[in-house]
């Protein structure tokens, strides 16, 4: 297997969502390269001991978002093109960021205060502006 996927069936997060997140994350960190072939639905289902229909559902959604492309008889491949890869990377970050914002709101952090915190972390991790 090109990337090390695994799912937690005990979690309340749908398994197909876990798979989608992991494929995107693998692409974002470079464990899966554009153009690289993904395991077949059957193979991944057997490897992870999860239902084949669930894996198929994850692949369908990834295809719909153009993260992967499937050609009949050849298999599924990570989509190529910088724009698509950047979109995938940004998706992965968006999920984390939204979780953090939702958490902050749930404990009553005000919008302005959160904005200030966000700016502070941006300054810390992007000290030279622009790209890292």
């Amino acid at each position: 297997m090109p990337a090390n996927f695994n799912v937690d069936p005990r979690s309340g997060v749908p398994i197909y969502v876990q798979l989608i997140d992991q494929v995107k994350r693998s692409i974002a960190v470079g464990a899966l390269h554009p153009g690289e072939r993904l395991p077949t639905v059957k193979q991944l289902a057997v490897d992870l001991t999860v239902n084949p229909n669930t894996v198929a559902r994850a692949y369908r959604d990834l295809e719909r978002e153009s993260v992967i492309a499937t050609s009949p008889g050849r298999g599924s491949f990570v989509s190529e093109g910088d724009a698509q890869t950047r979109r995938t990377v940004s998706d992965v970050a968006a999920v984390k960021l939204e979780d953090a914002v939702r958490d902050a709101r749930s404990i009553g952090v005000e919008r302005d205060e959160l904005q200030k915190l966000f700016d502070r972390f941006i300054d810390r991790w992007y000290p030279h502006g622009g790209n890292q």
Partner: protein
Amino acid sequence: MNPILIDGLTKRYGTFDAVRDVSLEVSAGSICGLLGPNGSGKSTTFKCMLGLARPTAGRALFEGAPLVPEMFEQLSFVPERSALYDRLTGNNHLEMMRRGYRNYDARRAQAMLEIFSLDPGKRIHRLSKGQRTAMGLVLAFSIRPRIMILDEPASGLDPMHQRAVLDLLIEAAAHGTAVLLSSHQIGQVERAADRVVVLKRGRVILDGNIDDLRSREKVIEAVFALPPDEKRFANDPRVRRVERRGSTLRVYVHADVDDVARDVNTLSPTSMNVLDQNLEEIFFSAVEEPRPATLEAD
């Protein structure tokens, strides 16, 4: 046409409905887990499906037709207590399979014996409970049927062999077999199944794609300075139930969670969180029984 279809199945003993108006379908390549407390009607459902008991009403169809002998080759049934001949050996049983089933696969049977670490030369009465269960599974998996029905298929097996059963079911589903299995172990169902049906007192109380249930069944946990009246949500059709502990309100939602969260928010909580529920938690909130400290292990 779905390989398994149960339509309005009812089984009445005297005045007691062991199974009441149960309907479900399992499509090719799907694994459906049948869950429910003891005595909720799981085994009765299987018996009625397979002609071991006569339903009071309703019917079961296999690939669109009632069960006929021609179908047996395409159907593996693993009963809760394995129906094996005590005085015969494992090899004797496999020989009967070979003679009775045109789709018997000797190499596959050999592989199954190895997976379950069984000595086929031993007579059945010399096997442990777990080994008998395993022998029943070897027979079931020695053919490649289009339909598999398993009643508590992992009872008495050690964790490694339990996992092997799941692997085999996944592999069967990947080849297009429709699988219906009952289990006490929610862990098996949440891992291998894509579909779950929960029975309580003979009725279906929850039925759906497991990932859809994970997406839909949420808990809104809100903390208040002044706890509101929990009855406010008691009769809300979007809400399964409401719990209050001190100043914390937990609202179990089974419809659009954002919608309900907005309503909770109008009560001005000091904090509010939406929590995921795993299948075990969904099961307990559906059967409306308090979650015991430990789950039944077997």
